[in-house]
């Protein structure tokens, strides 16, 4: 019953988009996000949505009027016309004009998205089956990010653990990517095995991670917080279980985090000779050794 009520509220929200039911509306629509690009994309999305709604209302109104009025059961006598050049020209030209109106702002945003110049931090993301590796190119920090254990246990077939009881079910990782707020972050994206896609809806950006390619995207998060996304390209059995979590921290906290990471790596790498700069973080040394031993 709760579900039916929710569905009803949701459809009401859909009908009266800008009315009080704003909470429900946000469940139904694209997220505005926290970056300049995500806001522009949201604006474009709404622009096109409303244009489509307006056209739909006009076209469906004519269809419904025809269905309601020109009925044989009401004794309607069919007309015999089968074309009208003026009307046909009008409904070819007007859509072209509307499309031009959409294309201009879309092209402008596209150019902005493409411009990765002037970034203040570069992070390299590598997709693996089924985890992400994050490398801070300039700081020499690198680590893997996998599905949180609580989610992983709950998602096993017939685990008996209710997903509702797990915090951020399937959207939590052990080691999130950490970036500073208000900085232009350039993300280089590649993959080591099959194609993945790195996506954080609140940043408005998604890019395929392709073996042999290095793609790039950029974002500048305006508000600190934890932003969650998922792999968006089918990558095999556990495609649904490799979330993306990004923690956006104030600059000072970010700096402290970087220092802590460096310190931790030095401590861990001390026995392992000179490879500290590229050595993986503590919790993955074990895994890598196992792999190498095989």
């Amino acid at each position: 019953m709760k579900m039916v009520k929710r569905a009803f509220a949701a459809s009401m929200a859909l009908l009266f988009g800008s009315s009080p039911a704003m909470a429900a509306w946000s469940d139904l629509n694209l997220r505005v996000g926290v970056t300049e690009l995500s806001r522009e994309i949201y604006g474009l999305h709404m622009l096109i949505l409303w244009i489509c709604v307006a056209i739909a209302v006009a076209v469906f109104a004519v269809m419904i009027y025809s269905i309601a009025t020109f009925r044989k059961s009401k004794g309607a006598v069919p007309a015999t016309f089968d074309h009208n050049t003026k009307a046909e020209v009008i409904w070819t030209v007007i859509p072209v004009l509307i499309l031009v109106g959409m294309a201009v702002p879309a092209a402008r945003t596209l150019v902005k998205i493409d411009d990765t110049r002037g970034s203040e931090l570069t992070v390299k993301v590598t997709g693996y089956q089924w985890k992400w590796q994050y490398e801070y190119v300039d700081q020499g920090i690198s680590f893997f990010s996998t599905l949180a254990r609580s989610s992983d246990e709950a998602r096993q077939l017939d685990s008996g653990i209710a997903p509702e009881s797990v915090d951020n079910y399937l959207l939590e990782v052990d080691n999130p990517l950490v970036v500073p707020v208000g900085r232009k972050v350039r993300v280089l994206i590649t993959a080591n095995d099959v194609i993945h896609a790195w996506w954080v809806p609140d940043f408005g950006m998604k890019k395929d991670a392709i073996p042999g390619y290095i793609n790039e995207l950029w974002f500048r998060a305006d508000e600190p917080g934890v932003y969650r996304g998922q792999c968006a390209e089918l990558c095999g059995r556990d495609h649904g279980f490799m979330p993306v979590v990004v923690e956006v921290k104030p600059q000072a906290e970010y700096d402290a985090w970087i220092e802590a990471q460096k310190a931790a790596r030095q401590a861990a790498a001390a026995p392992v000779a000179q490879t500290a700069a590229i050595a993986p973080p503590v919790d993955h040394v074990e895994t890598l050794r196992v792999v190498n031993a095989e």
Partner: protein
Amino acid sequence: MSATKTHGAAGHAHEHDDHGPAKGFTRWLTTTNHKDIGTMYLVFSLVMFLVGGAMALVIRAELFMPGMQLVDPGFFNTMTTVHALIMVFGAVMPATVGLANWMIPLQIGAPDMALPRMNNFSFWLLVAAFSLLILSLFMPGGGPAAGWTLYPPLVLQTGDALPLAIFAIHLAGASSIMGAINIIVTIMNLRAPGMTLLKMPLFVWSWLITAYLLIAVMPVFAGAVTMLLTDHFFHTTFFAAAGGGDPVLYQHIFWFFGHPEVYIMILPAFGIVSEIIPTFSRKPLFGYDAMVYATASIAFLSFIVWAHHMFTVGMPLAGEMFFMLSTMLIAVPTGVKVFNWTATMWRGSLSFETPMLFALAFLFLFTIGGFSGLMMAIAPVDFQYHDTYFIVAHFHYVLVPGAVFAIMAAVYYWLPKWTGHMYDTKLANLHFWISAIFVNLLFFPQHFLGLAGMPRRIPDYSTQFADWNMVSSIGAFGFGLAQLLFVYVIYKCAKGGTRVSAEVWDDARVEGLEWSVPSPAPYHTFDEAPVVK
């Protein structure tokens, strides 16, 4: 579009005892008769629709609630992959080929298809193809699970199912190409005297254009999957970066096939709707010429928009700009079609028989799918929509209440012509209403899921997506069950029912040669070509 009706043409009055169908199963195995082959295609596609539908229900059952309850994630991926392959190549395409086989000769006044033996061969190849595909489910390592797009490198991780799936695609492709050649040759050579190209029924026109698309792109797909095969078994590296190959190359080749393929599925549906709406509006189709040109423009544009399926692969800016703009252009001819159908109804005299109900549902719901398609054409926004349930909602809107509803409309339109009986219209209308309601319950909420951030092809999801997934699953089961009613209505109609006249829809505006032959259409029709003025 003025076809003369040759009422009860003299050629059909006497018995063809020397040309009747063979007895028993041999009839179906060796037949070269376009009606038999059309029937086999349609029955085959109905069976595949149910098999593919059952797989969809496995998917929706697992997605009913968050958490993994029923299947392994690998098997889930197999289900999404094989569901799509079966629905595209086994259900929608064979259904439209079956309709073409039945109706093109009847609509152009030809005695049969031009290449009847090849016609038989192309059908039975399809059976072989889908036997292989179904067998691939039972191979060590499980069935194909890389999505119907079969992207490398993932697809190369498939077990022993890979060669079976690829050969299935080869055979289905060969079958489609033969069918397409047959349709083109038939339309070009066997039209009744006087039926010029611009007097052909719209269904024939749309199939003529579709057939050219098929011949153009099926070999491309066959080439792409053959390269997968050699990459997997013969150490080539067409798509392997480590060997100097390029995984994105596959996507370009695939979508060069894949986008026209979308129109291969929808153009015949456009043709069907263009037949049915004038009939039950009792008014000639508005803008016949414009309809033909719009169909041809859509077909042309379908070759230059493929990379809009790949906006996130990291194309250069100029590439993204080009594919965004070319894709937006498709809205123009598609809009023309929708406006023309609407104008056909305007000041008509409408009645709402089952085929008209399906055609009207098509008109509304396909248009919704068209709008979401336009939204996805906008590349920057597609960065958000791409690979989410928004896409799933979009293409199911154009394929299910789009192509599939049009096919159902065609079945309800011509079934009395095929069987000589009117079906149970109450049950048929019930089938319509249940289907129309549940299909929206099934697919509309998927727009919300996609916008809220749910990726496609995942077996389990975060709890914030729970409500709409449950609604969607309820819709799926309702829609699925309604199709059993469809099977029953067809079965009952084949077995018996009220006799219908040659014109079937006596009080509507029947036009076209198919209504000039008796109902049921005799085994051989138009032994002598009718004359079209």
